[in-house]
């Protein structure tokens, strides 16, 4: 649990650093995607970060609402994209396709997954799927007040360790934890924090073998691809978008981007 008063004093509580930029964001330095299950307070987090001024429209060619806004923190300008609330990224529903494609092809600098602290297990389903696709993710453990009321305790440090990515507890309705979240976003995009995300282990023997076999071939074809295993799984699942991306080589765009980031981080 976060003590609000205590945090007034802590260094990250620097509200002055947060500027809600509204929609006129011609130039931004980083793109942040906001993912999460429905009913986790994702939109509250979004509103807290961007303020009232936001741009809503549809995702290109889809009848799914797309909201984006901007904010400035530590002299960096961020564009925040609100992805549709989904339970998973595997099914073929339009919402899930949009969220998945944005994380994969849209290449956000960091993906913040908003998680309901009172239903961690269910929400981890989505977190683990996001981590299969991207390395740079943050868990925003929201509704901590609600969890406290229900006597649910979460060991955030153990969670951070297990997932290999930063976990920030928040109470978005009360604005608690938002400064910490911003600080973490900043740390991840500037390379101060390196994520080493957890990757799914289990699955049946036959499948594991097939995945390994295929992932090996994918790595040969696209050296440096961070999520070859996931691409292999998607190929085995017959995902047309991924098949096309492999065929056209678009999937290697991810490699290039990653390489640049790494160079940037080591400098």
């Amino acid at each position, binding site marked *: 649990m976060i003590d609000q008063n205590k945090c007034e004093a802590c260094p990250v509580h620097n509200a002055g650093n947060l500027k809600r930029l509204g929609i006129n964001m011609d130039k931004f330095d980083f793109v942040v995607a906001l993912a999460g299950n429905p009913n986790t307070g994702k939109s509250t987090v979004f509103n807290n970060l961007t303020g009232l001024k936001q741009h809503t429209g549809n995702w290109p060619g889809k009848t799914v609402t797309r909201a984006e806004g901007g904010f400035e923190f530590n002299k960096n300008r961020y564009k925040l994209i609100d992805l549709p609330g989904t339970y*998973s990224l595997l099914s073929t529903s339009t919402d899930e396709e949009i969220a998945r494609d944005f994380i994969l092809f849209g290449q956000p600098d960091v993906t913040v997954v908003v998680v309901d602290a009172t239903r961690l297990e269910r929400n981890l389903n989505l977190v683990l799927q996001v981590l299969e696709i991207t390395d740079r993710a943050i868990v925003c453990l929201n509704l901590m007040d609600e969890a406290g009321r229900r006597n649910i305790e979460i060991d955030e440090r153990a969670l951070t360790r297990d997932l290999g990515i930063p976990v920030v507890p928040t109470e978005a309705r009360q604005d608690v934890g938002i400064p910490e979240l911003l600080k973490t976003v900043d740390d991840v995009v500037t390379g101060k924090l390196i994520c080493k995300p957890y990757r799914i282990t289990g699955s049946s023997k036959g499948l594991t073998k097939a995945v390994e076999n295929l992932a090996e071939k994918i790595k040969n074809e696209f050296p440096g691809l961070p999520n070859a295993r996931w691409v292999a799984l998607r190929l085995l699942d017959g995902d047309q978008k991924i098949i096309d991306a492999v065929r056209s080589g678009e999937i290697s765009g991810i490699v290039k981007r990653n390489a640049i980031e790494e160079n940037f981080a080591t400098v």
Partner: protein
Amino acid sequence: MTTNQINEREKLIASANTLRWEIGENIHDSIIESIYTDAAKIANKVVRIKEQKKKYSFDQTIDRIVTSKWLGFPIMFLLLAVVFWVTIEGANVPSGLIANLLVDTLHPLLKDFIASVGIPYWINGVLIDGAYLAMAWVISVMLPPMAIFFPLFTLLEDFGYLPRVAFNMDNLYRKVGAHGKQALTMTMGFGCNAAGIIATRIIDSPRERIIAIITNNFSLCNGRWPTQILIATIFIGGAVPAYLAGLVSAAAVVSIALLGIIFSLLVSWGLSKTVLKGEASAFSLELPPYRPPRILRTLYTSIIDRTIFVLWRAVVFAIPAGIVIWLVANVTIGGTNIAEHFIDWTDPFALFVGLNGVILLAYIIAIPANEIVVPTVLMLTVLVAGIAGVGSGSGVMFELDSIGDTSAILHAGGWTVLTGVNLMLFSLLHNPCSTTIYTIYKETKSIKWTVISTILPIIMGFAVCFFVAQLWRLIAS
């Protein structure tokens, strides 16, 4: 890209395909299972629940009440009735104020101003009497009820009550092949059909969503309530003893709304048995925990996202309609204006189905917004019947403060109780307004469904009016 590379990639894809035949069909299942296994492992490690005290008993208490056999439906009807009552009552005053400002005050001022600068009268007519007036009318009738209805509705949604309504209503909707959430989009449709159609996005199964879109028009929207109330007061209320008039006309309006619900269920059933027979269907509904609604946030988003959005679309469509209205009343061919030509030409058919040419013309030129039907009907009736001294000239829409005067004009135009009843039915069963049609197209991206949603209610409207008229005459003779 070299051919070699392409070959390698094709080989890769082909080998994936071969592997798929070997591992069989269960891959998707095992992927999800393994993710959940890992999720459970991690969650078990990091989550600790200290002595489980009676958890979220608040939610459970509310849920027990709102889904109880005896209280569930009464609470639902009561809440919805309160929302509608607040909307209709609360909108009266601001509507009057806006109409006062835009129609009664600003309109003559603008007209005089334009005339004084020496711009020809017909430009003045087209722009001010036509375009401006239509826009002013739409804003004054549409804005206040929507600005009240949408926030109230969103508050109920935010609190978490609406998913429970869908939960309770699903039994009924399942039987007609639809989704329980259609109850919500229909209720939204009572506010505005275009908003109701956008709201169908909450239905994630494509088949059920199409059904909800096509049948949304059977929810009597805000723009049609005033017409219903006025006509019911004049013709139905006028046909019974004075002390019953209020009650009977109110009952008539409610029956029309109920009839709309019945039609929407019937059409849903019909569609799911015919055109949509083979379409996919899936159902899942999460009942989120109750959360205190954020009032300011809700006010802001529902006014910006829903009200202004819908109003803007309506205004864009109303302006050309206003121009057409003025033109048909003022452009003459062979000495008579276009309006009268059309009315003379359609009258035989229209009277046969118990309506009249004025109504048909009004519904054609008022496609952009149901709100301007009554002013258009009055203007046209005065024009055709040659009544002098009311309104402010041909092509200028008007409404009268006195119901008695309105009644006199309509009776002078040859209206009977049958015309009144059929107008009420036709107001329920006719094509959606152009904003709604446009929204249907935007949401479905399909000309087929747009055309079906547009044509189906008109056919039903004429058929119902026809049968009512014939039976009426049969009984009366």
